[in-house]
């Protein structure tokens, strides 16, 4: 069976892309906006709810539901777009930001209209220098074409979009840490509740959405929620951008209907495993998703199938691992990343992960003992369920799964 992509978002990035507004309009851009501005905000939220769109940032929370949490009180609301794409192996947002910035802007305006926000912020990963320039130019273009600013396209709706680069912290991809960073504070997560939808940026109700989620909105408005819902499976509707990297011949960005493809097919789509090596496993959704090994790779790439196998689809960043790199090094490098990026706010993650990294390095150089695995497992227990945010939680999860799935192989496979 030949694999055929279902390119909805990525169709805007085809050929010359849609960096300029002319190209974007040629590809059918800003049609959805005109349509949306004639609808009532509640109708848009209803449409998004109908579509079953789930947040594409990693946690997979239904977007329509998130929007409906925003109180309808007539006060100021904010829309924040999380473009702090720092998860290792993930580069889906970059594709949108650099090749189809107007898709994001259009999605942002519609979303803001739906949640009655008059101000929006794009929090961009600091390392995305090119994207910053492209996005900035696109926003200026949009302002010049009265798509942003006061009375958009002659309607009563006004919306300002601001672009902010981060300062290079992975933790600021966590929504409350992002809000802190955006306010100029230290990038540490906030206590939940209250959730951002009730008390977010500057204490006002705020919706924080991923770039890909927002990019889906114009498509849903154009084609209707029911049409979108027919794509994918019942619980994972629509299409998803996958980024395939690691030990494959042609790492690539592709977009498939959810549930129509397995991870093994994805590897084949990327040209298969690289020459002369054997497949060890696949990390399905960015570094903080536990690894899938053996026949687990044959499950369809959907949110629900992944969680059945004790992992997650996350950001759809498929990292393929072969036997050319020692297992201990992979684990050490993963945990070191989280240890380095831990914000330091709560004890288990701040002190537990660097300790684990040190033990793993010891194992990597061949000095590991059986007890070290026990200590590692206990550090996982120290962290599990006891931290502030999902960073430490994710790190201990993958470490735990590595130990459970490979056991003493970690000590010997060096």
């Amino acid at each position, binding site marked *: 069976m030949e694999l055929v992509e279902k390119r909805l978002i990525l169709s805007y990035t085809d050929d010359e892309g849609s960096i300029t507004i002319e190209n974007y309009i040629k590809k059918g851009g800003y049609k959805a906006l005109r349509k949306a501005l004639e609808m009532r905000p509640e109708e848009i939220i209803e449409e998004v709810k109908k579509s079953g769109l789930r947040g594409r940032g990693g946690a997979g929370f239904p977007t329509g539901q998130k929007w409906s949490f925003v109180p309808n009180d007539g006060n100021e609301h904010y829309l924040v777009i999380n473009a702090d794409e720092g998860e290792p192996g993930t580069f889906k947002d970059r594709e949108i930001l650099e090749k189809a910035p107007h898709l994001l802007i259009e999605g942002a305006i519609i979303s803001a209209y739906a949640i009655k926000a008059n101000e929006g912020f794009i929090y961009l990963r600091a390392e995305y220098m090119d994207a910053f320039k492209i996005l900035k130019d696109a926003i200026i273009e949009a302002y010049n074409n009265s798509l942003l600013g006061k009375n958009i396209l002659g309607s009563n709706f006004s919306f300002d979009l601001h672009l902010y680069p981060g300062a290079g912290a992975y933790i600021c991809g966590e929504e409350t840490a992002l809000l802190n960073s955006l306010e100029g504070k230290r990038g540490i997560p906030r206590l939940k509740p209250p959730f951002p939808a009730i008390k977010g940026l500057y204490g006002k109700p705020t919706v924080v959405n991923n770039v890909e989620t927002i990019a889906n909105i114009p498509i849903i408005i154009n084609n209707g929620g029911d049409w979108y819902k027919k794509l994918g499976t019942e619980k994972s509707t629509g299409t998803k951008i996958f980024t395939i990297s690691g030990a494959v011949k042609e790492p690539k960005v592709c977009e498939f209907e959810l549930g129509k493809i397995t991870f093994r097919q994805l590897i084949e789509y990327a040209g298969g495993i690289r020459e002369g090596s054997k497949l060890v496993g696949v990390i399905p959704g960015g570094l903080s998703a536990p690894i899938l090994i053996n026949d687990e790779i044959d499950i369809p790439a959907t949110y629900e199938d992944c969680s059945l196998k004790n992992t997650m689809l996350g950001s759809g960043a498929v990292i393929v691992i072969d036997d050319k790199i020692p297992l201990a090094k992979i684990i050490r490098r993963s945990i070191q990343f989280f240890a380095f*990026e*831990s914000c*330091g706010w709560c*004890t288990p993650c701040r*002190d537990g992960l*660097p300790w684990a990294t040190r033990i793993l390095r010891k194992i990597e150089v061949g000095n590991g003992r059986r007890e070290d695995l026990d200590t590692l497992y206990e550090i996982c*227990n*120290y962290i599990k*369920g006891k931290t502030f945010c999902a960073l430490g939680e994710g790190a201990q999860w993958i470490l735990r799964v590595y130990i459970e799935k490979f056991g003493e192989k970690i000590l010997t496979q060096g």
Partner: protein
Amino acid sequence: MPKIVIDKKEYEFKDGETILEVAWRNNIFIPVFCYHPKMPYVAACRICNVEVRISNSTRIMPACATLCQENMEIITNSNVIKNDIQKGVLELLLLNHPLDCPTCDAGGECDLQELTLRFGSDRSRYEFPKREFERKNFSPFLDLYPNRCIECDRCSRFFHLIGGGTEWGTYNRGWYEVFGVWKKEIIENEFSGNMWEICPLGAINDGSYKFKARPWEIESIESIAPDDSIGSNIYVDIRKKYPKSRGPFEIGGRRTNLFKVYRITSRDNPKVNDYWLSDRERYSYSWINANNRIAYPTIKENGTYRSVNWEYILDAIYSDIKDVNSEEVALITSARSSNESAYLSKILFKEILFTENVGFSEIGEDAIEEVFGYSISNATISDIDDAKNIIIFGDIKNSFPILGIRLIRSSRNGANIFVYNYYKERYILENWAKGIIFHPYEIEKVAYELSLKVKNNEFRGKTVLILPDNLPYRVLRNLLIASIYHDNAKVLILRTKPNKQGFIDVGFKDKSIYEIIEKANLGKIKVLFLWHTDLLLEYPNRSEIESALSKIPIVIYISPFADYSIKYAKYILPETTIFEEDGSRTNTEGRVQIHKQALLNYEDSMPSWWIFKGLIKRFGISLKIDSIEDIRKLMKKEIYYYSEVDFDKRPRYRNYPPFIPSIRKLIKYYEYDLAKYPMRYKNLKLIEPEAKEVKPLVILSPHIYKSSYYASRCEIFYSYIKPYIRTIEANSKTIASLSIDEKFKLEDEEFSIVVNENVVDNVLIYRPLFFDSKINLYLNKYGSREI
């Protein structure tokens, strides 16, 4: 009342209470590191995690940050809690802790030590190097050891949220997270000393207490901060008189360490200082052993000094003053002694010597008594907390620093604060308050306009006016009258002398000291008592004061310190200070607070009530007074305001875990009684202001350490005072118009000019270190001089 279940027992809770609060109240002592009862919770350390079961799902939640809900079931002692959380968190915190307890000042009062002993493991599995930081010192008040830090974030939280500072913070992330100072060489915030007190271990230590003592050798005595009239509650820490451990007590046959204050820590009085202290209150204690303390009663005879005993000197004074006319006797004091001393001195001066010449300050006419019927504030300090509008005259940071804590808190809660001054002080510059800046000669006009606004209810909601009592008479009077017309306005009078309220309450009336000086200059004063004050230190206009003092034949100098005017004294009587005597003081809101004797009397010095008792006895009146309690009994009988005051007020207790040293300090708290005052408001009319032409002016201004009677004697403040640099501040426009470039010359003295754009036009500010400059010679009695 709704209920939650903790460890299978039901407990009641109020709405908005956290699990930790309910548990502690009921003696279930969940351990904490980052949580502090006086600060907002953050749930960072995670040692207070408990298992919470709501509708059949169990989760691990931080007890300090989880609000109670009905049907919550909480488990605090399961194996998961004990092993994975309490033991686990302690093991993780100790990974990087250097374990240098033997050389750490916090050893013995360290949360980490105590909790590890109680909940932790006795060994660590960590086998790698610990992280290390460079040590830097940013303040004479603090001794920093970042290696010991457990990143609880208490210090940064205090500094930002409560102290309102910006320079201190937590930097880096993860493993290398550490506290530090940003952009500045020295911490300028005046509340920095609180950080060592809330630090759960020895990462931030008291700089002044370094390597001096161990906590188990120390005894804390309740006392009052003597520098200002707020009367912050403090503990004076001294060596235990009967320590269990050995110590170097005997030096030359005398237990010298009993004469020394080791440090000052804060005492919680929610109505006054609310547990916090300013650095001036905390570090101003080395004056107790200043090298100019007076040791023995001394008589000056024919130009030579002779030390004598107390009986002799009191007899000599009696024989000198017994025949003097009552109009020729005067008392000048700065009201720095206890109420009990004030009461006995009142008997001596008002009932035996019948003198009217009593002065505390430069003020004289009492506008407060005229408008309010009695000279007292009608607001309390805690009224600041729920005020909607706060109107302040003067510089709070430099004269009453501890009030700043409440101002910052109210500003955060949305109160509008207005500061009237002739330069932008801290609270204006940091945007806590709106500033109204005017030339000192415009004060009547500005105050009149404000009075009209207050009178016409233009400030909506509860309004508190904070006014120092040395404001010009018309200004104070107009504002007081306006506050009566307002629906909901109260006035907090800030007494510029520490115990002035107590002196007024026992029956003294403040006459301007300049009236007495004038009389003396005319030769109408024969006997002058200078009591715990030094005119040449505290007042400008020095030449006038000097000539007056030299014309008085008998100057009786009662003071702990040998200051400048001692050379005019015939009799020199050493007095004990606040830390060496029992007593009570009435603070600016009328709260009668008790302090206890911490140290033995310095050499031969005696409490001033004992001195006055001796003099009264020589006049043939025998009061049955053997102790301070007898005076209190008498005061309660004789002084209406104090008739219901409880002088034996016991501390109250909270249910906090006794094994966490940094929180143990909060178990005890004190609430002293307000005296009972009759207020009879009078409906008076506002006085229209007199127009005065604005002219260039040099004016004395307060400095938090420089202009304090006690703090300016302490070396620890010298890095802030810079005593040998005399500067005058003015804005560049003034400097240009006066064409003074770098040096400012007044008569024969030179000052370097510091450009300070926050000062209003045509004003030059001089912040004196007491008596460090001859500039006082040329200033008029209000401390200003036209150029």
